[in-house]
């Protein structure tokens, strides 16, 4: 018995769940009275049930590890970035050491001339910087390769690098007084400044991110 091809097509439409109601009813009616088509349909369903019955197998236990080990090596830059993110405190120190050490050491070695912060009422006598009696110097005073004699008043910090600080009895410094004479102190002084800058930098960045997040939320 030779049946119209359309019944086979209907079977596949049925299996794809794309058969129309009318065609489904027509197929059903045909399968009831046609043994060949009925068998054909059952064989299709049986073979699919067998295929679907195969146990799902899992990848070997070490699969992920082996994939990860086989990946091309991560770009150096990224590894360093992640390390920085995970170690913010060490980052400040290493940033300082890597970027500043070279220029810093050469600065220490080559700068022999007296230099001083520029306030108009400071008096310079040879290698000594004098804050005259009765004068008030506004702002921080930094003397490099020379000494500082305070007879009047400094309205700020006084820092003497590679020199000495003499405080007259009437002299007055409202801020911190610091003498830096050894190279380690010199480095430490810069490191503290660098750390402050790094912290400020990260804080600024965080603030900026928070702000952009805020914007995103309102958008």
């Amino acid at each position: 018995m030779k049946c119209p091809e359309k019944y086979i097509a209907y079977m596949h439409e049925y299996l794809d769940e794309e058969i129309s109601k009318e065609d489904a009813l027509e197929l059903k009616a045909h399968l009831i009275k046609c043994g060949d088509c009925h068998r054909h349909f059952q064989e299709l369903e049986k073979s699919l049930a067998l295929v679907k019955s195969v146990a799902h197998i899992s990848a070997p236990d070490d699969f992920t590890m082996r994939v990860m080990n086989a990946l091309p090596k991560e770009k150096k830059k990224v590894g360093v970035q992640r390390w920085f993110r995970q170690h913010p405190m060490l980052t400040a120190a290493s940033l300082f050491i890597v970027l500043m050490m070279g220029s810093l050491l050469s600065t220490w070695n080559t700068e022999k001339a007296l230099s001083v912060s520029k306030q108009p009422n400071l008096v310079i006598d040879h290698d000594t910087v004098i804050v005259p009696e009765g004068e008030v110097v506004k702002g921080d005073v930094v003397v490099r390769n020379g000494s500082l004699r305070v007879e009047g008043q400094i309205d700020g910090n006084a820092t003497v690098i590679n020199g000495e600080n003499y405080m007259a009895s009437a002299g007055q410094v409202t801020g911190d007084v610091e003498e830096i004479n050894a190279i380690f102190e010199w480095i430490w002084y810069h490191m503290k400044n660098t750390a402050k800058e790094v912290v400020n930098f990260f804080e600024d960045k965080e603030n900026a991110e928070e702000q952009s997040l805020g914007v995103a939320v309102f958008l």
Partner: protein
Amino acid sequence: MDAIIKKRIKQVLKGDQNAYAEIVELYKDKVYQLCYRMLGNRHEAEDMAQEAFIRAYVNIASFNIELKFSTWLYRIATNLCIDRIRKKKPDYYLDAEVSGTDGLTMYSQIPSDTRLPEDEVENMELQDIIQREISNLPEKYRSVIVLKYIEELSLNEISEILDMPLGTVKTRIHRGREALRHQLRNV
């Protein structure tokens, strides 16, 4: 899950390789299963599945984050398996040990496309018989049948994975089903 995957992909794109491990964990079984059903050999399946994940990693910048990652990954894996089937040399893994066969090599195994004597068929596990018959399907029917009935994907997704019109996918599934009917009706 899509949100997690997107997040991990963005981390990978920024260069955080470790984020990729989670992606592998999520999809390894599906990709391995796909490769195994396509190739019928655990060694080859593991090789191809690993290769698929490595290629996906290397090319992740070309993945459109707005699309479904699994579709893209399955496409890579399916193409690798199809290539492997097409240029499969008969001596592939000839000397390699076949897992679970205690030191047997392919020299003592039966090539998948030759018929087994009846008594040996009876001794085979049903699972192995079904896998053998999937392996006996021509490659163009095998991929659609595996994606549809083992990975349980929609016809639309299969059409995307195989980069093939929906009509072609349907035709191949119909023919694949007819081929399976012939092969499995006496099981």
